[in-house]
């Protein structure tokens, strides 16, 4: 795996470079919107990859609730964090495309609003994981992730069931929808490039989460070791005081 990783990094860089060439130069210019439509080759693959990452987070959260393994929890965290990064790109490139085409940066239609809600759900998931303390944090986060994932099909179906400013589905839509085959090629190359890039990021974040857990465990072991090395409390000479009450006071606890 260690020897495969640098090779995978090179393949990802090559894929992203070729995908850039496809999106910027090889794909034909769209008749109505002109060159600004090329934002599509970054916007759409980022949305699809974000959905995939949130799906991975959903599966890992179920896995964690069933098995309570550290790996499942680390995978859930990594996929959610990278998913938020990709969803951020969608929310930034969308308005940059909307402004010259629609004349507005943002509108509260079903697709845009549900995407923003999706982003907020996963940001709150990360905030919960970062700042909550206690043994139940991972369980609560997994439960939030499972319910949060319900927004993904809502985002996907929003342009099919609601009248929106966002265009109706171009891919898998009704009659008259569809893409020029050369545009499809550019979409698929960009999808492959950003999917590979997302896998690299998830791997980096996953290993970081496991390493941080191991470090935390080592810190706890060391603290326990130090505590065991401490000399035992002296027996009290005063009447009515037990050695237990002494040690409890030393630790800063009130004896109950």
């Amino acid at each position: 795996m260690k020897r495969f990783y640098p090779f995978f990094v090179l393949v990802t860089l090559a894929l992203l470079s070729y995908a850039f060439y496809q999106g910027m130069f090889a794909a034909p210019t769209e008749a109505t919107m002109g060159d600004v439509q090329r934002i599509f080759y970054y916007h759409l693959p980022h949305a699809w990859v974000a959905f995939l990452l949130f799906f991975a987070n959903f599966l890992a959260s179920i896995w964690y609730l069933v098995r309570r393994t550290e790996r499942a929890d680390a995978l859930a965290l990594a996929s959610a964090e990278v998913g938020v990064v990709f969803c951020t790109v969608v929310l930034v490139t969308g308005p940059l495309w909307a402004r010259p085409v629609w004349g507005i940066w943002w509108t509260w239609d079903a697709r845009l609003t549900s995407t923003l809600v999706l982003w907020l759900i996963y940001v709150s998931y990360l905030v919960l994981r970062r700042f909550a303390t206690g043994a139940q944090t991972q369980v609560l986060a997994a439960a939030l992730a499972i319910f949060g994932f319900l927004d993904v099909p809502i985002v996907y179906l929003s342009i099919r069931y609601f009248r929106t400013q966002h265009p109706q589905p171009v891919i898998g839509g009704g009659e008259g929808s569809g893409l020029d085959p050369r545009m499809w090629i550019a979409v698929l190359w960009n999808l492959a490039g950003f999917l590979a890039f997302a896998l690299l990021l998830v791997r980096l974040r996953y290993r970081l989460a496991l390493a941080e857990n191991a470090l935390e465990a080592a810190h706890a072991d060391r603290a326990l070791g130090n505590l065991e090395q401490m000399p035992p409390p002296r027996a009290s000479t005063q009447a009515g005081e037990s050695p237990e009450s002494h040690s409890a006071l030393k630790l800063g606890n009130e004896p109950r």
Partner: protein
Amino acid sequence: MKFLYLAYIATWTIHGLYLLYLRGRYQRLREERKELEKP
């Protein structure tokens, strides 16, 4: 074209910032490991 370039630049800025954030976390992890190894 201005918006197209802005979108591509924004995309890679977001990814770049995330990579920097990960690098910072890895650096802090290495420092904490070194600290832990000290007797």
